[in-house]
């Protein structure tokens, strides 16, 4: 096990070094391929180790390097860590397969080398964060993860959009590290050790404080609203294989941290559960509402990541609440549901990001309004995207449904509680949850419909080609997993060792398959003659793609319903030729969404910092008199202080 795990790490490091060496000696493209193959081998080794640990329940512990007796890099794979390592490994495996062809797409040779080098480093750092045995190692690899992903986000660094994303990402990720630092130092201050298990020895009041710091730290990385703003920017700006990894895996690492610290180590209090529940519900609902409005394909997916992280956090919150009241069945249901959804989201979100990446690469745009008709040009990608869409919309029998139903079922456990206030809160949460599920389905009807159906809306979309095989195989594995995890969810959960009242999807899927087969068969049997002709266009001679249903049109009713949240500003300016305002010169119409969090939360905070910095820098830049005045005031204050306290 030791050889397997450490060998895997070594292979990943080798894969990281290889492109850098070839960058120095100007070796060709072959080095990319070799590096990616080595990465695949390394990931396979580590994933195998994790799977062995997960299924046999073996505890794998290993000291790698001791900086000082106190600060050590050591790893520990227990069941929870092994689960997350396996998840990272699996998704990363598919993402690397996808990268074989994707990386060649880039224009600048140098950057391809850097991308190939950083990819294994990023994967390795994510694995090590989860495997880390103490807080020092965790924070160390956490920072490596942040920095390597920052450079990956900055791949297209010339674009203004990427620069904005980079700044947002960097600041927010540092903020999250800062809060983790606070929590860890707090633990160290009280226990004198960096052991994760030692966190439990904190006094109760300090535990709550540590929880808040950990929640903000991990919540920022997970993209919970209101710490989410970096997520849509960074995910849309980075290369698609990286977005798949970031959204699919990196967010889950924050979930791992939350699980590890709040449930495994600390004894959660009731109000922690409500904090998780409220933030989770808000993220889930607002995430999907923002996604509906989004017409940038990758941003849309990024907002769905926020939504799904919200679902997972709701599951964790429910676990805390039910556990507090001693309701074991709903508690286990929600925890297993949350972890299962973590796995499922990692799989279908990276699948969606990869297929979206193929689409973006084929059409050269991220705006879905300029796509369309791709189902004929890229049929395999379309099917894969459809499977991902169905999974994320929680349609049975796919995996998204399997995990969301667990959280729904555990919600129903609320009726066993005898506290009416909590019951009401839970029912409101349940309603919001149901709303979120419906809206998610709506959103993916829009995404799939506008991107793949109808006729191409732009020249580029008309010229799109099917993605190369590597970019199909990676997502295809994930799509297959989506189906398997959905159909056999009951059996899998049983095999892992949980007896939970979840519906068995196998008969359902067989039934569904049968119905479909019968339906198709009947259609074939009683075939009605079909006449193919032009759609009636109200008498217009030739119809153009511009007359198609648009994404804006599709989401308009929902935008109107949630006007309060979007705060859409519609401006319509007209100029006239004559004073009587009868002949229009030209018209300008604009629909803009009010970016609540950016304009009301982030920017004011940033401006506050800028202003205080400007204030201080203005005080720095003064003439001699003022400097001496400062010195004078300081001396006098020191005198007064000394007089008072010495």
């Amino acid at each position, binding site marked *: 096990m030791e050889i397997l795990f450490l060998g895997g790490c070594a292979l990943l490091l080798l894969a990281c070094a290889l492109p850098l060496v070839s960058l120095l000696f100007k070796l060709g493209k072959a080095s990319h391929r070799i590096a990616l193959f080595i990465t695949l081998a390394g990931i396979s080794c580590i994933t195998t180790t994790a799977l062995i640990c997960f299924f046999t329940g073996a505890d794998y512990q290993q000291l790698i390097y001791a900086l000082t007796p106190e600060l050590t890099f050591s790893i520990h794979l227990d069941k929870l860590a092994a689960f997350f390592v396996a998840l990272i490994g699996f998704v990363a495996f598919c993402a690397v397969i996808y990268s074989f062809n994707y990386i060649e797409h880039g224009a600048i040779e140098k950057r391809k080398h850097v991308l190939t080098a950083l990819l294994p480093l990023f994967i390795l750092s994510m694995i090590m964060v989860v495997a880390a045995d103490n807080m020092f190692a965790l924070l160390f690899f956490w920072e490596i993860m942040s920095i390597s992903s920052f450079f990956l986000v900055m791949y297209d660094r010339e674009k203004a959009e990427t620069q904005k994303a980079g700044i947002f990402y960097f600041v927010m990720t540092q903020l999250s590290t800062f809060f983790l630092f606070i929590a860890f130092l707090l633990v160290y201050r009280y226990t004198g050790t960096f052991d994760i298990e030692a966190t439990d020895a904190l006094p109760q009041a300090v535990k709550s404080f540590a929880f808040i710091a950990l929640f903000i730290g991990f919540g920022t990385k997970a993209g919970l609203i209101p710490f989410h703003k970096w997520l849509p920017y960074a995910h849309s700006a980075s290369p698609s294989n990286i977005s798949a990894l970031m959204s699919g895996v990196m967010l889950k690492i924050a979930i791992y941290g939350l699980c590890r610290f709040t449930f495994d180590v600390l004894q959660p209090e009731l109000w922690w559960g409500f904090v998780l529940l409220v933030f989770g519900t808000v993220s889930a609902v607002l995430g999907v509402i923002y996604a509906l409005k989004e017409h940038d394909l990758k941003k849309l997916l990024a907002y769905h990541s926020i939504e799904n992280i919200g679902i997972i956090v709701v599951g964790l919150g429910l676990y805390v609440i039910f556990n507090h009241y001693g309701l074991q069945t709903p508690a286990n249901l929600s925890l297993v549901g949350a972890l299962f959804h973590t796995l499922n989201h990692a799989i279908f979100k990276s699948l969606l990001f990869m297929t979206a990446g193929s689409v973006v690469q084929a059409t050269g745009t991220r705006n879905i309004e300029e796509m369309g008709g791709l189902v004929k040009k890229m049929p395999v990608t379309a099917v894969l995207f459809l499977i991902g869409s169905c999974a994320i919309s929680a349609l049975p029998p796919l995996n998204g449904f399997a995990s969301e139903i667990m959280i729904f079922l555990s919600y129903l456990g609320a009726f066993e509680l005898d506290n009416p206030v909590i019951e009401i809160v839970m029912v409101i949460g349940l309603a919001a949850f149901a709303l979120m599920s419906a809206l998610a389905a709506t959103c993916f009807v829009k995404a799939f419909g506008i991107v793949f159906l109808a006729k191409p809306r732009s020249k580029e979309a008309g010229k799109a080609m099917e993605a190369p095989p590597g970019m199909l195989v990676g997502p295809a594995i994930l799509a297959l997993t989506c189906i398997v995890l959905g159909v056999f969810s009951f059996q899998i959960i049983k095999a892992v060792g949980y007896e939970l009242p979840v519906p068995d999807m196998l008969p359902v899927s067989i039934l569904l398959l049968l119905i479909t087969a019968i339906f198709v068969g009947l259609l074939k049997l009683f075939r009605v003659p079909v006449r193919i002709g032009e759609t009636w266009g109200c008498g217009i001679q030739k119809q153009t793609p511009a007359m198609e249903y648009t994404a804006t049109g599709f989401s308009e009713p929902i935008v109107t319903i949630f006007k309060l949240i979007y705060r859409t500003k519609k401006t319509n300016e007209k100029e006239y030729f004559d004073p009587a305002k009868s002949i229009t010169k030209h018209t300008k119409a604009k629909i803009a969404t009010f970016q609540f969090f950016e304009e009301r939360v982030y920017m004011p905070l940033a401006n506050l910092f800028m202003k205080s910095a400007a204030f201080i820098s203005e005080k720095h*830049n003064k003439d001699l*008199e*003022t400097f*001496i*005045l400062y010195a*004078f005031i300081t*001396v006098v204050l020191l*005198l007064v202080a000394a*007089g008072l306290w*010495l």
Partner: protein
Amino acid sequence: MIDTIIFSDIIHGLFVLILGTAALIITQRSLSSLFNIYAVQSFILAVMAIVLFIENGTLNLLFIALLTLAVKTIFIPLFLHRVLKRMPVKRDLQFSFLSPASSIIISTILLFVVYLFFTNIAGEVFNDSLILLGGVIGISLILMGMMVIFSRKRVITKTIGYLTMENGVLLFSLFMAEMPFIIEFLIVIDLLMILVLSAVLAFGIDSSLEEFHKKLNRLGIWVED
């Protein structure tokens, strides 16, 4: 040897005179009388050193007295007067942050603060109230010198501020901590350097540091808008 009571009376009288000259330095607008007041203040310090020498008999004090007399009461004021003759301005009317009246009020408050501070931290160590008072007035003189530096605009007046600060240090060292003679000597050399430098600045850049600051800005060290 002088009677102890007379000795302490003399020292007290000299303290009052020093405070008076310090107040005049803060408020005086005419440059030439400012130099004269500085000369008087330095002279009082020299006298004080001689009185202490007669009381203690430490030869160091005599040297300090002679040095102060030669450099601070004669040479520096003479030099300043000669600089003044070539300067277009004879009076310093510009004040920043503090007007002369408020400077006086603040320095009075400071005197109390410093006194409280000293009695608090050093009251038990120095039983002799004379030594304590010497330290208090020395520190206050340093602070008043600082006030002169930041509240006056002309470079030449600022120089007087620095010189007053040094007088405060000298007064402090006379009573509280005996400085070796060599350090006192080096400080005097520093004073002369300050004088030369400020004369250069005063002539080169029209006797006000503000313009010097602007020139720095133009060099792009920092652009204010």
